[in-house]
């Protein structure tokens, strides 16, 4: 009898210990967001990626997040608190967290960091971004076909290479199908500010733009477009499908889920390494949202074809001959842009009648 009791007790202790060991082994993954997951744009998609990790890896992981983290000392503090409380993988999902990520990474060599859209790396800091410009080429193609005023409005965030690249890519694709097309660019100097974004959309509409693209994350421009007849736009970062079929006629979706799941899996397998990832339509990090009936069937077909060719590598969004805005030669006939130039792009291509603020 006593023996049985002892055995049972021992088994209980063992299972208890095993349970504790499993709890301990759970990989804790933290996310810091620049906006709220409810922005239905940039942060929303990162949060979808976080949920995808939980779905794919279930009990083996635990994910946490803090929203609305300013790109200041606050971000450094939040990441430090995460590292101290047992997080082993931390995703920082905005460009200007960069220096703060590097500071925290230095203090916690055992913790791995993933920084979206940045360019500073370390042994425990990876960077990743998407080739959004491929998506821009597709919506630029649609825009060039669709505009009746030949004026395309562009709500830009900050004059950084990523944004300038998007403007160039969209312009080249629009111009290829409509040589008359003109771009008007408004710099909002924000990623997420519904008020400012709405103002920018209205300013562009007043200037005659009937197609509007945005590189800001809220749906506010969509709401403004909806108030006007005949104005169309494209979902940014997220599908923004609630505005389909018009004004939203298609969208560029950032799909972080496959990358996030792969990185979390690499942590579990012990194969995580510092890398620099730049994925496009091919890998599925950039997706083109459903094109609605508002777009003529033949335009839908040609846009779809362009997307497929960009994915297969048959077409590059930047294929010569392309001159820079000042008229100097950039790419010769048939030449395609290299990633290094694209990553640091700080000039407009020829034909854009605007200036990059500096």
């Amino acid at each position, binding site marked *: 009898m006593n023996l049985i009791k002892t055995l049972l007790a021992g088994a209980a202790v063992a299972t208890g210990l095993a349970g504790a060991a499993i709890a301990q082994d759970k990989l804790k993954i933290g996310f810091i967001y620049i906006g709220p997951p409810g922005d239905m744009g940039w942060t929303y998609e990162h949060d979808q990626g976080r949920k995808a990790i939980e779905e794919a890896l279930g009990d083996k992981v635990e994910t946490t997040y803090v929203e609305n983290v300013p790109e200041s000392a606050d971000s450094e503090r939040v990441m430090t608190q995460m590292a101290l409380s047992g997080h082993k993988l931390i995703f920082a999902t905005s460009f*200007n967290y960069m220096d703060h990520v590097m500071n925290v990474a230095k203090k916690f060599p055992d913790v791995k960091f993933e920084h979206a859209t940045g360019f500073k790396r370390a042994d425990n800091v990876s960077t990743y971004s998407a080739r959004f410009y491929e998506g821009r080429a597709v919506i630029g193609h649609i825009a060039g076909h669709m505009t009746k005023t030949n004026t395309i409005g562009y709500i830009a965030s*900050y004059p950084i290479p990523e944004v300038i690249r998007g403007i160039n890519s969209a312009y080249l694709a629009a111009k290829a199908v409509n040589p008359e097309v003109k771009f008007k660019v408004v710099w909002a100097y924000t990623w997420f500010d519904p008020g400012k974004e709405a103002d920018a959309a209205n300013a562009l509409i007043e200037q005659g733009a009937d197609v509007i693209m945005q590189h800001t994350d809220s749906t506010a421009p969509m709401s403004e477009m909806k108030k006007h007849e005949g104005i169309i736009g494209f979902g940014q970062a997220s599908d923004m499908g609630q505005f389909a079929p018009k004004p939203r006629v298609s969208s560029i979706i950032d799909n972080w889920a496959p990358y996030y799941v792969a990185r979390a899996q690499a942590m579990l397998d012990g194969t995580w390494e510092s890398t620099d990832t730049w994925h496009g339509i091919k890998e599925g990090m950039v997706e083109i949202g459903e094109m609605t009936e508002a777009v003529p069937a033949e335009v839908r077909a040609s846009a779809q074809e362009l997307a497929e060719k960009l994915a297969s590598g048959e077409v590059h969004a930047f294929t010569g001959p392309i001159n820079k805005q000042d008229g100097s030669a950039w790419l010769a006939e048939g030449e395609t842009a290299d990633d290094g130039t694209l990553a640091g792009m700080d000039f407009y291509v020829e034909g854009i009648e605007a200036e990059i603020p500096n």
Partner: protein
Amino acid sequence: MLRLEARPEPSRAMVMLTPIIAVIATMIAGGILFAFLGNNPFTAIRIIFWDPLFNDMVASYTRPQLLVKAAPLILMAIGLSFGFRANVWNIGAEGQFIMGAVIGGGTALALYPLESPLVFPLIIIMGGLGGFLWAMIPAILKIRFNANEILVSLMLVYVAAQFLAAMVTGPMKSPVGMGFPVSRNFNEYQSAFNAELLSNTGLHFGVLVMMAVVIVGYIFLTRHIFGFQIRVSGQSARASKFAGVNPHTTVALCLGISGALAGLAGLFEVTGPAGKLSTNFPLGYGFTAIIVAFLGRLHPIGILLAGLLMALTYIGGELAQFQMSIPAAAIQVFQGMLLFFLLGVDILVNFRLRWDSKSKEAH
């Protein structure tokens, strides 16, 4: 009809107890809010108020961080409290904070890469001066034209924010910032960097200045003629004239001191924890400082405690967010409750509720 009737002599004990009652009421109401959101209210309150101070894993880091987060709030709140006591309402500390950072930080950027021990003292002076001069605008308009300092100082916050935006998209933009509207990082400039004084404590020069200001503020308020003067000005303008207080001097001093302290707070913040000037630099510290000033009963020691309490709710709030998935908005509501209950309890301490019956009116 419910009516408020002023108590002839509010209980001193109650005046002191008000903040504590407000904190307890916030915990209760906040707990209910968290419970409705599906979280365990006791765990949430423990994480917000206890863990940043005593949790094994994070507290050694978060304790000093409380001082870092609270330092600018306390520095500004003490400056504001003098004015609030004297009925001089500087609502624009946020703008003076920005101007201190821009003028002081801009001076450093102009001197870069000159390495000299004189750089840091110089930019401190320039930071204080930036805030001081910005606060002198409402002061002069008040003295000369009797313009309302509440409106003028508040409006100047937005002017300061635009000035900052113009600077970081123009002359102060970093040459290595990839086009982002941010200045050069101050940690690349040894002479101007407001570094940690002891490693891994987060303590920087601004924290020391804050502590000195608490002590000096206490002496001024309780032992110095200036403290007496502002208290008299606040109680009765006529009485203060008899006491020989020049109301114009009071206005200029109150706005000047609060502006200079806000400017210093901005300078220490930008060259230290924030690290760079950017359009995202202002986070509303100047407005939070108003809450801190009142939460601290406009008394330097009270403000010190109130600032630390505010910092605790920020840092604990972050912990609660990622440990319990409490949304950021709920944490902000929680912080808002603190001021709401403070003001509510305040009213009940100074007034009593009276029920006027209809029959009385009939007489």
